[in-house]
């Protein structure tokens, strides 16, 4: 069973409540349909321009009627109560749904609705159609004279001017739409279900968590619903969010009519009882769902987040969610501005394509010139007049356009004109944000007096006033906003087959070209702040390409499917089959299926899919049935299903990229020409559509190319969520449509004192004008230079100013450490102190950056421009490059310099603190090689290995013939000295190991455990030789080791125990060693005493203990014996038995 079907054509644009959500069906009062215009009260919003009063009265009647039985404890409600006992008492309180009729709601509402005349004059203001289903019927009418100017050609018959007629018309329209309402996929009993109203009374009913009727059930349903959303089992994510926000902001419940509310007692199965019995239920459910959709919510724009975070209902039902939203709002940088496209500018003469050589004859050349003039004339006239009431494109310009088209006889002239047309289209419509465009075109002189920040405010104000308040609900039909309307109307008015064909060719080529463009191949590294500068550029470039592609694809779709567009699907199956048979022979205008597969394979879906959706949105009813396009849609459907937002595995698609794709695909699935069952088609049909996605992991999809600005630019309907929330906040303004905030008017008079700003705007215009007349390569060069120099400037600042500051920080830190002792204090505090001292210096960055740009940019421009460039042009180009580079660098620097300094200082701080090290001994300055060192010393690794061999020989087991010769030992120690003095190859771990090994070696020497090769005294080392070797070791420990030597090892039980094995035991070497250690300051006397003391704790054989104690006493008694000649027999009378070393 399908969970959801597509929403049908429903309401006029004021409609704010979505009729159907995927799982729920908010029951409609279908009994009313047809007979009486106004349907369920909730459907009428105050926003309906020209919304008739009947609507309101109907609503209030229905509402009043619904109140009575509930208040009287109707069987319906009692059965509900029984099914859910804990809520019984609450149910008693339910009457307040209606029984608190504050003011206007109780009596017949006297809402005055000023009927607004509906006519072609307002055709551009807002779409007149419902949010899902634009009737396409009227658009491709054969006679251009009948063309309508509304975005989708849905026109009102001319001449119906009287309000009465209009109302009648609206009524008809509405009843027609109601009849088209789909049968619910999940029929819910309609009886007795109160309906949430978003309008009704203007004072909203307070929602109370304590009065939710069936928590458990709502929770469960919310869970299921959220899972469906999360798994992309719903066609349109944002439509669902919109529905949920509608529930959140429902103003009050409107009960259904009385007769609906009289079910036989007990007949109402608890499962079938209405889900939303009160506003409390609605809000509870909405908050439950929102909690699970937090991940998506926090990617919405800052404005929406603010409104959500400030929503008092949300706070009341889930303070936790509110807290998270607030945090998300505070952390969000996603300010979205839907600025208007900049004003038009003509495409300049392009020598490569537009000069005489490209035309067959002088005549064709001149004709083209004339056509060009006509084209711009027509464009200017449209610009000036299209907003005037009563002006009609076809009437005003149609004949002139057709006359011009008639002159384009030769094929080459057509291609020239199409190129111009397309370039102009891109130039006028594609700009993502009208950066540099003039505000309110007409009065630059006044504006320039405002100054930069005021200008920004004015921009926002203009946006609010001029930008369409409503894009036509959360799922509007495809439209041609702004300038695009001109090009659409031009194509329609021209109605030239040749022109259309050339246009399609040209659009296809350009789309292929842009789609295949090599876009940034290196992902931004979050490590390095500088690459941000570059990455922003890459991202901007992606946005430009994507928006261009979408625009081109939209027009391609429009022109390509224009001949087939009909009002509705073919009436009979036979007819449809024959059309299909015919159409399946026609090759697709652009092989979108292959491009889509390639895009998916190359992980560039984020670029390909959005324009493909634009293209397909203009498909006629037959297209989705054609095998070729069916496969395309099927692939898109699979893609949609696979874009699960919660899955964030590495190398996968970025969240916002996914969100963009989900938004555009969801929108496409709601287009009326796309069959409803397409989305719910059975699974497992991917057959030959498997895409080869083994390709590189460095696809565009995994790079954060989409930001909120681009998302909202591509999908302005997401902004409806914000408008919905805003209209809740503005309360009473609900009737005026859109959200209204108070705007404080500013006067220009007091601001005139800032003349310098005047030049800024003018300067920008001058620059534009300058480029306009120069070859495009000049502009590219200047922009390239500005971009690279700007970026280098940041790196320069980092290498100079910031590096200096870091050095300062390091010396400050040293001082700090000296004054505060070893500890130096808390690192966090230290960082704060350093930053507060150093960050103010960041201000110099701007001046230094400017200086850098001024110095570098002209050189680069000069190097890159051709020699013959006139001096004046060159100097202008240079100064523009300087200006642009400075702007780029300064914007980045002023925003990031403090953070950059902070980051670097922090790194320096942790570096310094780490270098301090935990052990004070390790802190002492490390000496390098002596000056004359030739780095010829033996390798440390070799030495460790050699000493290890000696140790293993000494420790055994060994073969009888194994041993070391004394010379080898001496050589080893002298090599050790060399290695320790040449520091080049020595790393601290190796040195530590050498130190340790040397101590072990000393222990073995003292215990005479080293097996010696050679004739004199086999297996014993000469005493004097041993002493010499110990002297060498002592010198090495004293002078050459730069790491602490673990001398205390000498007195560990294990090492001292080595002596126990020797016979006769000879203590003199140990005593000698200990006294030398003290003498040379390598160990403290007390330290040795402690070690000796602790030796007694180990278990020794009796005689050994005695000898040890004697040694101890001797060491204590005779501190200054220089060369003790001592034998065990002198200590005590030793018992020469076999003694085990230990235990």
């Amino acid at each position: 069973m399908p969970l959801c079907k597509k929403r049908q054509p429903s309401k006029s644009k004021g409609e704010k409540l979505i009729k159907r959500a995927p799982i729920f069906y908010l029951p409609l009062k279908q009994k009313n349909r047809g007979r009486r215009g106004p349907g369920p009260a909730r459907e009428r919003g105050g926003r309906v321009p020209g919304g008739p009063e009947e609507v309101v009265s109907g609503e209030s009647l229905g509402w009043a009627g619904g109140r009575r039985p509930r208040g009287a404890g109707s069987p319906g409600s009692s059965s509900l109560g029984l099914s859910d006992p804990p809520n019984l008492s609450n149910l008693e309180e339910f009457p307040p749904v209606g029984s608190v009729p504050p003011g206007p709601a109780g009596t017949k509402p006297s809402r005055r609705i000023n009927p607004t005349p509906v006519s072609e004059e307002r055709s551009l203001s807002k779409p007149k159609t419902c949010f899902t289903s634009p009737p396409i019927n009227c658009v491709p009418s054969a006679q251009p004279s009948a063309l309508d100017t509304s975005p989708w050609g849905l026109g009102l018959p001319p001449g119906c001017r009287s309000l009465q007629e209009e109302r009648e018309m609206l009524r008809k329209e509405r009843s027609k739409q109601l009849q088209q309402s789909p049968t619910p996929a999940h029929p819910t009993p309609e009886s007795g279900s109160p309906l949430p109203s978003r309008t009704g009374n203007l004072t909203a009913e307070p929602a109370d968590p304590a009065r939710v009727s069936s928590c458990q059930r709502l929770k469960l349903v919310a869970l299921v619903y959220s899972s469906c959303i999360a798994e992309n089992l719903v066609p349109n994510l944002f439509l669902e969010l919109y529905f949920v926000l509608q529930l959140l902001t429902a103003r009050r419940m409107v009960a259904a009519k009385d007769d609906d509310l009289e079910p036989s007692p007990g007949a109402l199965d608890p499962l079938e009882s209405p889900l939303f019995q009160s506003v409390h239920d609605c809000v509870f459910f909405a908050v439950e769902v929102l909690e699970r959709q937090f991940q998506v919510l926090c990617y919405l724009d800052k404005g929406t987040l603010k409104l959500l975070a400030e929503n008092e209902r949300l706070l009341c039902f889930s303070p936790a969610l509110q807290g998270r939203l607030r945090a998300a709002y505070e952390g969000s940088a996603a300010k979205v501005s839907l600025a208007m496209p900049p004003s038009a500018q003509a495409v300049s003469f392009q020598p490569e394509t537009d000069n005489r050589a490209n035309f067959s004859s002088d005549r064709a050349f001149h004709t083209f010139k004339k056509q060009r003039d006509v084209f711009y004339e027509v464009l200017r006239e449209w610009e000036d007049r299209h907003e005037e009431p009563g002006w009609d494109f076809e009437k005003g310009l149609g004949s002139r356009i057709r006359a011009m088209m008639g002159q384009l006889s030769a094929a080459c002239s057509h291609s020239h004109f199409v190129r111009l047309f397309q370039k102009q289209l891109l130039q006028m419509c594609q700009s993502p944000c009208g950066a540099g465009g003039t505000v309110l075109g007409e009065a630059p002189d006044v504006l320039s007096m405002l100054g930069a920040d005021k200008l920004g405010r004015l921009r926002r104000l203009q946006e609010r006033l001029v930008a369409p308040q409503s894009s036509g609900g959360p799922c509007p039909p495809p439209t041609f906003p702004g300038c695009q309307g001109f090009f659409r109307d031009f194509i329609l008015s021209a109605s030239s087959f040749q022109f259309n064909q050339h246009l399609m060719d040209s659009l296809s080529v350009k789309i292929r070209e842009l789609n295949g463009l090599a876009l940034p191949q290196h992902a931004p590294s979050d490590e390095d702040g500088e690459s941000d500068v570059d990455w922003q550029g890459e991202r901007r470039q992606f946005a430009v390409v994507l928006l261009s592609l979408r625009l081109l694809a939209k027009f391609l779709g429009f022109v390509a499917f224009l001949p087939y567009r009909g009002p509705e699907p073919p009436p009979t199956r036979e007819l449809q089959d024959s059309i299909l048979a015919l159409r399946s022979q026609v090759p697709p205008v652009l092989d979108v299926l292959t491009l889509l597969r390639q895009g998916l394979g190359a992980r560039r879906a984020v670029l390909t899919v959005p324009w493909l959706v634009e293209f397909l949105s203009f498909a006629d009813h037959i297209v989705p049935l054609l095998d070729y396009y069916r496969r395309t849609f099927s692939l898109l459907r699979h893609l949609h299903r696979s874009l699960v937002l919660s899955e964030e595995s590495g190398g996968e698609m970025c969240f916002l990229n996914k969100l963009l794709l989900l938004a555009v695909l969801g929108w496409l699935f709601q287009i009326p020409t796309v069959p409803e069952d397409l989305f719910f088609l059975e699974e497992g049909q991917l057959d030959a559509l498997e895409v080869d996605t083994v390709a590189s992991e460095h696809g565009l999809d995994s790079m954060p190319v989409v930001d909120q600005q681009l998302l909202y630019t591509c999908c302005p309907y997401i902004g409806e969520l914000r408008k919905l929330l805003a209209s809740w906040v503005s309360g009473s303004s609900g009737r005026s449509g859109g959200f209204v905030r108070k705007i404080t008017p500013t006067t220009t008079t007091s601001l005139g004192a800032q003349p310098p700003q005047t030049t800024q705007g003018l300067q920008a215009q001058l620059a534009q004008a300058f480029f306009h007349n120069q070859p495009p390569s000049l502009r590219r060069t200047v922009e390239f230079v500005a971009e690279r120099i700007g970026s280098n400037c940041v790196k320069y600042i980092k290498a100079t100013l910031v590096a200096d500051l870091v050095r300062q920080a390091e010396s400050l830190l040293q001082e700090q450490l000296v004054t505060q002792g070893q500890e130096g204090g808390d690192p966090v505090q230290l960082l704060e102190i350093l930053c507060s001292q150093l960050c103010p210096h960041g201000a110099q960055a701007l001046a230094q950056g400017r200086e850098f740009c001024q110095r570098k940019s002209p050189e680069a421009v000069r190097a890159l421009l051709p020699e013959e460039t006139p001096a004046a042009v060159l100097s202008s180009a240079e100064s523009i490059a300087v200006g642009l580079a400075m702007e780029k660098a300064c914007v980045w620097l002023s925003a990031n310099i403090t953070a950059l300094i902070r980051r670097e200082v922090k790194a320096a701080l942790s570096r310094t603190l780490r270098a301090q090290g935990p052990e004070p001994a390790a802190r002492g300055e490390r000496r390098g090689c002596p000056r004359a060192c030739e780095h010829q010393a033996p390798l440390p690794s070799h030495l460790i290995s050699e000493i290890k061999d000696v140790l293993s020989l000494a420790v055994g087991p060994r073969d009888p013939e194994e041993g070391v010769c004394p010379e080898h030992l001496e050589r080893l120690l002298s090599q050790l000295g060399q290695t320790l003095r040449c520091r080049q190859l020595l790393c601290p771990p190796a040195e530590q190991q050498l130190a340790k090994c040397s101590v072990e070696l000393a222990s073995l020497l003292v215990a005479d455990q080293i097996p010696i090769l050679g004739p004199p005294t086999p297996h014993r080392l000469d005493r004097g030789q041993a002493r010499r070797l110990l002297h060498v070791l002592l010198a090495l420990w004293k002078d050459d080791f730069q790491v602490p030597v673990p001398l205390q090892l000498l007195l560990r039980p294990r090492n001292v125990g080595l002596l126990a094995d020797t016979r006769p035991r000879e203590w003199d070497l140990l005593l000698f060693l200990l006294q030398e250690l003290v003498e040379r300051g390598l160990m403290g006397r007390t330290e040795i005493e402690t070690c000796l003391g602790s030796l007694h704790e180990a278990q020794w054989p009796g005689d050994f203990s005695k000898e040890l104690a004697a040694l101890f006493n001797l060491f204590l008694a005779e501190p200054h014996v220089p060369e003790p000649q001592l034998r065990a027999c002198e200590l005590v009378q030793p018992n020469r038995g076999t003694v085990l070393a230990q235990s």
Partner: protein
Amino acid sequence: MILTKAQYDEIAQCLVSVPPTRQSLRKLKQRFPSQSQATLLSIFSQEYQKHIKRTHAKHHTSEAIESYYQRYLNGVVKNGAAPVLLELANEVNYAPSLMARIILERFLQEREETPPSKSVINSMLRDPSQIPDGVLANQVYQCIVNDCCYGPLVDCIKHAIGHEHEVLLRDLLLEKNLSFLDEDQLRAKGYDKTPDFILQVPVAVEGHIIHWIESKASFGDECSHHAYLHDQFWSYWNSLS
């Protein structure tokens, strides 16, 4: 130095089930006098590591550990000064240092009744005089100094070799006037995986273009080549070519 595959195979053949001791290495040197000790040790070490990887698991079953521990206890009761642990390791064909670790772990577990932490074990292996039992301390120390493939001493030698080769390589690069970025500089620039050096201007060696150099300072047999390729080299190639 370039070693032929046949020579390598011959050496590797001699190393099958040979204990990693000084004596084995000495025999190897006598057998292949033309090869340097470093080369032989490196091959020995790698072959032995392969052997340990294959057999590691069977020495760590609780039955095996228990039987080793009992044998150790019986051995030291008879004669604490004899190389009990070392001989046990050689007998069961396991690295002495690793055997020492097994026994030490088991010993501490018995004393403390809780499994000792890795850092405690490591610290005791690095400095056996911290081991509370004197006999065991001696036994462990004996294992460690006699093991030429595993243990803290060998680890330190390997580390030192790695460091030395990096320094030598850097000197060579400087001497040849090749501009490069070293690992520290690369990390500061935010590279994730870095080879030892990236050449700022690529050079050609024997017809191959060299972009980066990673010094491994060990013998490059087929198996370790594969492992390094998998772990490091491909990711360098992807990002640096």
